[in-house]
């Protein structure tokens, strides 16, 4: 099963992970990553914008590639858009597979692609001003680990 969604409101990743577990009885393990807005820094809020005709189809394509490449039993890929505050989840990727390493690597693969190749534009609120986040050189290095 693939559960790929864009969410406009704060979400709890646990029900989706529980549903993945319930629907993949053949899986020997589930690896999950939840990315949150960091607190304690100078960032007061984060805003993600997207382009509907590209962003979700691109996420579905990524989920299908990961599912095939790592022979997954199921995959959850949830991503917030809109304005988020510290502590709120931004993204949840959870992969169920027969074997541990496939599940862990699938999550890492999906996160590297979501971070640097998915259609999201981010800006941060710092000292009452919005700042766009530019691409980083590390993103290319992260992606190259997976062979393009």
């Amino acid at each position: 099963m693939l559960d790929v969604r864009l969410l406009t409101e704060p979400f709890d990743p646990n029900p989706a992970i529980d549903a993945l577990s319930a629907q993949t009885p053949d899986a020997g393990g589930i690896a999950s990553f939840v990315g949150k807005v960091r607190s304690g820094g100078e960032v007061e809020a984060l805003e993600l914008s997207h382009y509907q005709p590209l962003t979700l189809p691109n996420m579905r394509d990524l989920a299908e590639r990961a599912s095939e490449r790592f022979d997954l039993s199921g995959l959850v890929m949830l991503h917030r858009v809109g304005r988020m505050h510290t502590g709120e989840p931004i993204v949840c990727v959870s992969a169920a597979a027969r074997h541990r390493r496939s599940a862990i690597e699938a999550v890492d693969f999906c996160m590297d692609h979501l971070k640097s190749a998915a259609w999201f534009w981010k800006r941060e609120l710092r000292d009452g001003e919005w700042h766009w986040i530019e691409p980083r050189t590390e993103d290319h290095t992260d992606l190259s680990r997976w062979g393009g």
Partner: protein
Amino acid sequence: MSEPVRVVYLGKLADIACRDQSRLDVHSGPIGWSDLIHILENQVSQGLGQAVSDNRVKVALNGKILEDRASLEASEGDEVALLPPVSGG
């Protein structure tokens, strides 16, 4: 009256344009890439044409990325999205 072309600005291009989208009329025929740059710079917001000219800006026509943005031909009712590089992690 023909349907306008809708131009959608993503990321910081929306800041430079001071709006999320524009509607451009196509009375004088389809809008090509250089026409678009000219219209954005002179009719929408100064500096926008230059920002969109950045080689890293990708263009989608009706939800499909153009391999070669110079091949753009936007006709009535089309949606053109201007996509700056996505933010890093």
